């Protein structure tokens, strides 16, 4: 198993229970949609996988490594093995589009030659070749979202997590992005995507995990957005 959550619970310090007794197993190469109403706990789940938040209870295994008991110094390496499109993009305002994507490669100390070759490729994949020298503040919402996606893909991670990656995109561009994700998935990358895009989920016929009221309401092999 690539990702495995066993009895995971998370309650915030203000007493709000976000996740309760979550059990999920995701295999290598799967494509999983994570759905649920606003505030259901999708992003919280993702943050637990990245050790951005600590689970109160339960065990989280990624690549057979126990995330909940991971040492501080190993966290960066966990995060590098996972490409993430953050719901709030998390772009560096002081870096250009190119530098933002390149930064993900610099972090893993990739050779400059590889960086110079790889970054333009992913930027053209998300349709931003022309925007590579602009700063995030000079981009439209959807363009920023695509920079975040490009950054998540650039190191060819074995897991790609995308939190609402099409929220600011028009249907055409969204489908373009979904085609990219499918292709990456076919090449072996496991994809976990939190989304509200009903049409996309319904059309893709992939595994759907629905979170409602802190627990897993549904886990269908080839599901749709709603019931």
């Amino acid at each position, binding site marked *: 198993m690539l990702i495995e959550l066993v009895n995971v619970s998370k309650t915030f310090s203000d007493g709000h229970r976000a996740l309760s007794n979550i059990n999920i197993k995701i295999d290598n190469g799967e494509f999983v949609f994570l759905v649920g109403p606003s505030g259901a706990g999708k992003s919280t789940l993702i943050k637990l996988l990245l050790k951005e938040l600590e689970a109160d209870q339960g065990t989280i295994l990624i690549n057979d490594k126990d995330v909940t008991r991971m040492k501080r110094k190993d966290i*960066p390496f966990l995060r590098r093995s996972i490409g993430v499109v953050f719901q709030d993009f998390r772009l560096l*305002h002081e870096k250009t589009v190119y530098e933002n994507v390149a930064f993900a490669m610099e972090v893993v100390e990739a050779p400059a030659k590889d960086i110079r070759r790889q970054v333009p490729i992913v930027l053209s994949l998300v349709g931003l070749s022309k925007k590579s020298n602009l700063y995030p503040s000079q981009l439209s919402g959807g363009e920023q979202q695509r920079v975040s996606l490009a950054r998540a893909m650039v190191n060819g991670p074995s897991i790609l997590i995308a939190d609402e990656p099409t929220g600011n995109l028009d249907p055409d561009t969204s489908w373009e992005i979904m085609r990219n994700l499918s292709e990456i998935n076919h090449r072996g990358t496991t994809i976990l995507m939190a989304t509200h895009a009903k049409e996309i989920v319904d059309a893709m016929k992939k595994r759907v995990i629905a979170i409602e009221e802190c627990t897993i309401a549904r886990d269908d092999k080839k599901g749709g957005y709603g019931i």
Partner: protein
Amino acid sequence: MKARTVKYFFKQSTRSIWRNKVMSLASIGSVMAALLVIGIFLILVLNVDYLATKLESQVEIKVHLMDGLSENIINDINKDIKEIAGVKDSVFLSKDEALKKFNEELGENSYLLEGLEGDNPLSDSFIVTLEDPRLAPKATLAISAMSNIEKVVYGKEELEKLLNITYILRVGSLVIVGILFLISIFIISNTIKLTVFARRREIGIMKYIGATDWFVRGPFFFEGILLGLIGCIASIIILGAGYYFIANYIKQQMFGLLVISLMPFSEVIYSLIVALLVIGIIIGSLGSMISIRKFLKV
């Protein structure tokens, strides 16, 4: 760590200084200002010490000789005195010269000495200067043991008073410079804290993408060095130029009016450069490394 990573850090830090111009200027300014404060006081301390040393070098031992010694004997005594440990110089003062000097010193009261010219009651003497005024008692003892010496005198009370004053001047100025040193370090480290605080979001994002602690720190470390270095060079230039100008001005304008003179520029500048470089760069780089810690914990 790979060589290209260090190169990368360096490039990142210069770029970041340039892109955050407002912030970089403000922090360079504060670092520079803090170093100026230290520098101004360092100059004062150096000058106080210089003045104290000058004052101390004025301590002298008066060696009164027996009456009617031959020139040979006097020369021998001079040689012997100069060989005593701690003696810097010894100058002969004949009893006629001594009377003339005394006459001048009395000023309006010199009429008291009228009539003494024929029968000078003073004696020939050596004025002995020392390398360290603290050696005066020892040297006095050694000279007293020599033959043909009538009396050896040094202003014991005056010496003690002088040593006390120079001690207090030195300690006082060192204490103040120490306090200002701490204050400056405090200001610089607070400035760095604010600079890092302004970029907390950036630091968080880097960590979320999988940057290790030292990878995030690297550019901040170099940035600290650069900002410290710039602030430091600026303050050295301002202080150096200012001191050079003021020292010259005082020399020209006040010449003769004052016992006080400023320490030469060349002697001041080295201590200044060393002290400011160390504070500016070390505090700049280490400060940013430490300030960043809080925001690395994500």
